[in-house]
């Protein structure tokens, strides 16, 4: 972390440049002491935030993209949710009731949920504020599982049937036990939607069809400009939300988003999950006295893919050499976003504080993967029969992920070359990349980003279970498969954690993935925003609903 721009000299230079004025005031410390009594929530006002893209459309059963899911999280509820607020430590995901006030597990494969009574839909046509019932739940999940082209299907594909036992009771029967069921039900694709909307509009893609039971209602969408939400007066948690409106400002350019925040036109950090780039953090603190922040690791990480069935990656030594040749630390020190703040990831990303194994608890061979050492990498390659390295091609999507991703690719490729892995970089336009490479139509290797799945199991289940469409590695390891099946059936959390740790140890031993890391981001929110706590995941609505504005 030697050459970062965290140079206080910058701010002093700025002071001189602008000649005192507002900046001087800010730095000299108009620090608002937070009096103890300012803990009474204030109702009203508008929360304003910036977001980097428009929603694709508004149907949660037809996309898994965060650009749609995040705004929808303000309008919809599900049976259970991830607890939100400042009392929740980021990177932990405790589940609490949402629409279901309680639930019991009758046996390994049967769950019974009791719904809250008097939950009202938004008062918008065609639903018009009626009460939510078990039939709505049944309808939602049947559509979820049967509709063509639902990329979220794996979240619930093991569910056999859903029955509305009575007006407020729903029964789920699974095909096989799944210890993750409740956590999966809390994910942000399992919202309850209204039958009338689907019948009236054909699907839920149009913005008029967004009618839910969540804290805010979607007033209007001005494409490329903003989405405006207003409070749902009959929200099923009395008193919430505190803020009357939410202004979701859409801005594709990072400099413009930052400027919008710095000039006071939004209340939260400009990037995803209200993060501010570490590069910009000093300027932000200077412009915003009393800025509240929280540092934690997020889901997003790079991903290196290769086919374990094809030479040379069918040789364990070569796979190990690949990781030894990667200098992940260098990547994160160079990026504008991270500036050296990062955490290495085992197979389950570090962003899952409870399920991700600490690197030092891996077996020795697995731990060594994270130690960058070009000489060792060369030695391993020589032992594997490649004394002069080998040639291979790498496919990567071009520039759609921004200059940080390009830098990541450049550094990674450079370090591999230094170890003798002579990489021919083939860049593909994003659409072409998604259509082919992601599904395994690549020759040797690819570099991409890991999807932000909200449950730990997805990170090894979808990649390494035989038969899964995303198992582009071609992994079919009986020992691994058994372990994965076992953890799914292990309901005891401590025991399951042991199995999940074992899986991560095994994957590291077998070097079945390329080492990577995730950024420790700095989420930031203005001094006048109270009772807010950031966390990973698409649930902006859940985190915003109990926040209030103290102005």
């Amino acid at each position, binding site marked *: 972390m030697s050459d970062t721009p965290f140079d206080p000299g910058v701010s002093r230079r*700025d002071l001189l*440049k*602008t000649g005192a*004025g*507002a*900046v001087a005031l800010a730095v000299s410390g108009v620090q608002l002491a937070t009096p103890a009594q300012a803990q009474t929530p204030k109702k009203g006002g508008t929360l304003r935030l910036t977001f980097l893209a*428009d929603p*694709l*459309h508004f149907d949660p059963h*037809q*996309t*898994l*993209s965060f650009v749609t899911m995040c705004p929808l999280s303000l309008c919809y509820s599900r049976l259970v949710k991830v607890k939100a607020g400042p009392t929740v430590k980021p990177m932990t995901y405790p589940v609490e009731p949402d629409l279901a006030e309680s639930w019991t597990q009758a046996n390994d494969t049967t769950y019974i949920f009791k719904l809250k009574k008097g939950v009202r839909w938004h008062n918008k046509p065609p639903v018009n504020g009626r009460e939510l019932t078990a039939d709505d739940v049944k309808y939602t999940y049947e559509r979820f599982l049967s509709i*063509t*082209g639902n*990329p*979220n*299907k*794996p979240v619930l594909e093991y569910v056999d049937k859903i029955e509305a036992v009575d007006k407020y009771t729903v029964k789920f029967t699974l095909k096989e036990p799944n210890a993750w069921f409740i956590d999966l039900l809390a994910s942000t694709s399992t919202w309850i939607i209204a039958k009338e909307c689907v019948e009236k509009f*054909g*699907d839920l*893609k*149009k913005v008029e069809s967004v009618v839910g039971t969540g804290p805010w209602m979607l007033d209007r969408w*001005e*494409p*490329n*400009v903003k989405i405006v939400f207003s409070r749902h007066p009959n929200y099923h948690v009395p008193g919430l939300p505190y803020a009357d409106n939410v202004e979701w*400002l*859409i*801005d*594709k*350019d990072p*400099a*413009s988003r*930052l*400027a*919008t925040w*710095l*000039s*006071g*036109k939004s209340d939260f950090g400009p990037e995803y999950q209200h993060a501010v780039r570490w590069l910009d953090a000093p*300027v932000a603190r200077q*412009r915003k006295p009393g800025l509240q922040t929280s540092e934690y690791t997020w889901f997003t990480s790079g991903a290196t893919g290769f086919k374990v069935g094809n030479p040379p990656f069918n040789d364990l030594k070569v796979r190990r050499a690949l990781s030894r040749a990667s200098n992940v630390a260098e990547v994160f020190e160079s990026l504008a976003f991270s500036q050296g703040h990062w955490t290495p990831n085992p197979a389950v990303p570090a962003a899952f504080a409870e399920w991700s194994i600490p690197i030092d608890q891996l077996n020795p061979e697995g731990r060594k993967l994270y130690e960058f050492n070009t000489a060792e990498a060369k030695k391993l390659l020589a032992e594997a029969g490649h004394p002069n390295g080998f040639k291979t091609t790498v496919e990567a999507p071009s520039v*759609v992920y921004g200059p940080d991703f390009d830098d990541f690719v450049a550094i990674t490729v450079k370090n591999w070359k230094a170890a003798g892995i002579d990489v021919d970089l083939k860049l593909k*336009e*994003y*659409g*072409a990349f*998604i*259509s*082919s490479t*992601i*599904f395994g139509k690549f020759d040797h290797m690819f570099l991409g980003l890991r*999807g932000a799945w909200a449950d730990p199991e997805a990170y090894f289940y979808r990649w390494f279970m035989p038969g899964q*469409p*995303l198992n582009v590695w071609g992994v079919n390891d009986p020992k691994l498969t058994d372990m994965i099946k076992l953890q799914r059936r292990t309901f005891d959390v401590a025991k399951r954690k042991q199995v999940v740790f074992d899986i991560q140890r095994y994957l590291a031993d077998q070097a079945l993935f390329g080492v990577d890391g995730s950024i420790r981001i700095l989420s930031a929110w203005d001094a006048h925003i109270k009772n807010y706590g950031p966390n990973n995941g698409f649930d902006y609505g859940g985190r915003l609903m109990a926040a209030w504005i103290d102005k």
Partner: protein
Amino acid sequence: MRVYILRRLLVAVPSLLIASLIVFTLPRLIPGDVVQLMLEEKAYGKDLEDLRAKLGLNRPLYVQYFDWMGSIVRGRLGESLWTRQPVLTELTRRLPVTVTLGIFATLVSIAIGVPIGVLAATRQDGALDFFARSAAILGLSVPGFVLAILVTLLPAIWWGWTPPRFVAFTKDPAGHLLQFVLPALILGVAAAAAIMRLTRGMLLEVLRQDYVRTAAAKGLRERVVVLKHALKNALIPVVTVLGLQVAGIAGGSVIIEWIFGIPGMGQFLVDAIVQRDYPVIQGINLIIVTLIVLTNLSVDLLYAVLDPRIRY
């Protein structure tokens, strides 16, 4: 005269038809299956086929083409494959924005370019000519988005000020028009250089001609000569370039729209291309192409008015 107009109109028709063919084919040449894109990281075999059928993408190409042409004739441009919003609605919302930006930018470029061009021509090879030409070229040499980013970011850091965000005309007419000032300036300055050089060049040539010398010899003041006789003729090619400029601005404003958060056609188009949203790409292209063909047509007709010697 009437024959000329008719002939010109007739010529435009095959151009439009060919354009429609190109408009239809071009996006489909791009690899990447829109259906697979929609299903993103998950595609069950049967799901793909069902979705494709639902969207009508499994029909033979020529059927899709004629279907599209048919709906155009009926005044509909189809729906976006992704958002299912009608393409025409989206376009009617965004086109005025881009056109306003284009008009403002063109006005800026004329307001800067023509006077400087005239000055430079009348004082050819003098110091003013040098400075004018250098400044103009420098104006177009700096990529517009650099200026845009600086204008957006630096004031925010120094003074906590940013250019205003988009506001619709119906809500706040003054604010709506004001927001175009900065982006139009940046776009216009780059275009001004071309206008300036052309004005200067044309004026120089015209000034050398006999009828101008005759007018000057008759004793009319220089300024009158220049303005009345020379400029009128010099403007003919300038008008051509303006036609091309409009096209350039329509397409080239994407980056400026992006940075200033202006919801125009540019952003819409880029997104559509990345997402392979064929109906949207086709719709936008068709509208733009038609606009440009019409603009060129008007320019040609304007010629006929300005210079009776010109005939096709």
